[in-house]
């Protein structure tokens, strides 16, 4: 039986790299990424899973990293916004965000991109309604979402053409 501890060791894979972090037990996955790995592309906006700025992909699913204990992420595979660019080339979702002016202040953008990725990985040909649902856990105060939805639609097309 585990007797518990205030310091824990977490082993996980982040953007394809295995890492080990020792941190206090009340550390969240979000803190682990930002304060320990300095992957600051993942943002904190509310701390209670409402704004989605901290969205990362954990074992294939978009999650709020502020609502995942570091300990619960042990053994998991995490993809953050820093893992989207490959060999200096933007991911098609990122390219579509740039082309469609889907970015204003940019604070929600990394979380938005991760939600879009999780959506398109699971559903390569979403309807507009499905796209809206896919990003419904990501608040944006600047854009009114329109150009973001357009970007994801376009990215889906590009990705489909690529795999076709």
């Amino acid at each position, binding site marked *: 039986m585990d007797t518990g501890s205030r310091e824990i060791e977490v082993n996980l894979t982040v953007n394809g790299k295995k890492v080990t972090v020792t941190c206090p037990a009340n550390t969240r996955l979000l803190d682990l990424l930002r304060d320990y790995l300095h992957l*600051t592309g993942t943002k904190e906006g509310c701390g209670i899973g409402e704004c989605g700025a901290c969205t990362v992909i954990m074992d294939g699913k978009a999650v709020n990293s502020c609502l995942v204990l570091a300990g619960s992420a042990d053994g998991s595979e995490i993809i953050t916004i820093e893992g989207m660019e490959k060999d200096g080339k933007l991911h098609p979702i990122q390219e579509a965000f*740039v082309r469609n*002016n889907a970015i204003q202040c*940019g604070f929600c953008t990394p979380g938005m991109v991760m939600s879009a990725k999780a959506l398109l990985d699971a559903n390569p040909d979403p309807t507009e309604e499905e796209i809206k649902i896919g990003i419904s856990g990501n608040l*944006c105060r*600047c854009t*009114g979402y329109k*150009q973001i939805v357009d970007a994801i639609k376009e990215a889906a097309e590009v990705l489909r053409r690529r795999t076709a």
Partner: protein
Amino acid sequence: MQGGAVITAEAMKSCDREPVVSQMPGEAIPEGQRSDGRYCVVNKPVPRVDAYEKVTGRAKYAADIYFPNMLYGKVLRSRYSHARILSVDTSAAEAMPGVYCVLTAKDLPGEQSWSTYLFLAGDEVRYTGDAIAMVAAETPQIAEEAIRAIKVEYEPLPGVYSIEEALAEGALQVQDYAPGNIVRNTHWPVRKGNVEEGFAKSDVIIEREYRTQYIEHAYIEPEAAVVVPNPVDGSVTVYGSLQNPFMTRRAVAVALGTQIGKVHVIQQTLGGSFGGKEEVMGLMCGRAAVMAVKTGRPVKMVNTREESFLESAKRHPFRLRYKVGATRDGKIQAFEAELVDEGGAYNSQAQFMNWRACVHTTGCYEIPNVKVDVYAVHTNKVYGGAMRGYSSPQVIFGQESLMDELAEALGMDPVELRLKNAFRPGSVTATGHKLEGQSVPLVDLIKRVLDETDFFAVRERYRKEREEAAQSTGAPEGRLRKGIGLAASFRGCGLGAESPDATGAFVAVMDDGSVLIRSGLTDNGQGLSTAHAQIVAEELGVKIEDIVYQRVDTSSIPDGGMTVASRGTFTGGRAMLGAAREVKKALFEVAARMLECDPEDLTSAEGIIFVKGDPSRSITFKEVANRAFWSGREVSKLFWFIPPDLPWDRPTGQGPAFPTYAYACVVAEVQVDMETGAVDVLKVTAGHDVGMAINPALAKGQIYGGIAMGMGMAIMEEVEFSDGDILNPNFDEYIIPTSMDVPEAKPILYESDDPVGPFRAKSLGEGAMECVAAAIANAVADATGRRIRELPLNLERVLLGKSLKRGKGGASK
């Protein structure tokens, strides 16, 4: 020397360097068309210059900065909205391992307050955001524990929690210096004509009262700052999420009791602000600076969302009282208004935003007799401040609701009433400003929006559907009612007569041909850096990729005022244009010598300088830049733009308030569930007189975002209080629209020929949201047949006509 440069066919095709042919004011030009063959860089939807860093997560927001040896700061806030502090015991916190300083008001090295806000309250707290003590510790967790270990003894005092309570006879006075709780310097009257005579002439007179709510900016990035001390000279460097770095610099200097020049402020990528990251950042940076100097270590402070709600400014709630009279034919004869806003416990910017309110009180209509009084009151609640629109969204909600109600009383179509009274070229505003020498395309803009929305036909269809639905029973869909509403507005561009609107820009050409630009105004996410880069690229005739934008650094550019009042492009753009012009002049002189021609014969596009009409005689911008640099020419320029003075007569509120105005017309379509009060905003069509859009994609982005924010104001957002305590300080209960909530949005970029702004651009950022709530409220009234005079139109108000509130002191009037 002949340049080896080749002008691409593309460059020749895409740019015609002839001067812009003047268009008739008011002529609507479909977006994009006008730029063809006219501009290379402006009026084109070029991608944002900061898109790459943001979409990859590389952009560094203030909370993303880490320094070795950095401490984390945290603040203890008041438990009460009004109390005397009897004692503060910090001993337990000080004794905690990892805690490096615990400070209270008595420990502050400089002033205790800045403007009227308190870095730390000493003996009295006036709202729940007031800070009492602060700590710096090794980790955020230790700082949080240390804060919890501080013991404060309070003597709770009664408070003032509404406009009525503040104005009541013998009311407790929130601030010693504000008798009657009237916020200092906030009374702005307007007197035009004689309202008594106007009412005497009127056939119909109505009196109405409307109210708006406390609204949170809800930028997704909570406030953050890192202050790094320099033990050698006692200076500090501040990195922060700042809308107004120069304002922050002043606050930090006050907190430290040091010279302004010793505070070096560097703006980080800003995660939204909307007017919000002003006072709260001055306070945060001031506190962090004091702790950084005290400990000799960098101090980082990051607000939780709850802390952000507690201490950041809010949109002022307004009580809007009107009396308006018109003759049968729909001519408005007299307009009397008393607008009172709730400023909360401190300074609140009401002295400025109430000026804007007084200018815009009567809306975009020509009215001969006007009497307006605007003033603000203090309460023991969080202070009001700037928020996108700066009083206009509130004022327009009241005034445009009033127009619909007046039309109803007259038995007249509300659109006809508006068109009959709308500003035209030559109209005289309520402040006595004759609209000449500027574009006033309001009437045509309204007509264009009516056409685009098929307004009259849709209104008629919804009316028929409602009648039919009223007859069917049972089925839930039979209880759904659709409605359509319209609102129009005008908005003064820039700061106008409110305060000095001068600003600077720095343009420096490097010897590799790249161009460094700096402004004192900030990119808050709206895309100002891109707009400025486009303006400079267009003027110099270089590619946008050649422009290097550096964020605001207070030690590298003079204080150019605040990035407010949608002046970033409108005013800041003129400074950029001025600097670029002077640099261009110097470069063309060098190029002329190289090409053996007169500088006047030259033009440039896409990085190539060439002889007009003879593109074979050309040279690259880069070669010229290089030659200019090595021959000692000045190819950098700090340009200071000073707009003409605008005289203002305060007792009568008469004067040319702004250099020019931007017009808007918004139509909203809604569906209301008559049995639950749920409002579904179906579609919003927003027509905006942009002058010319420097970047149509970014301009549309402003409009889409404005629609969403306006919709939140209309139907869902409200900071709730119980005796001054904020009941909904996070996004679970303070709700803003999600992707599922926003309506279909249709922006119309209406171009007009205005000579004032850079490349004819007018302000847009704030105008984009100011009409939306009013249009939605009018649509809801159309759908339900019932006028609700208080925002937001949430479930309870729409169903019951009043709000229901939990907590004390929150009862709706």
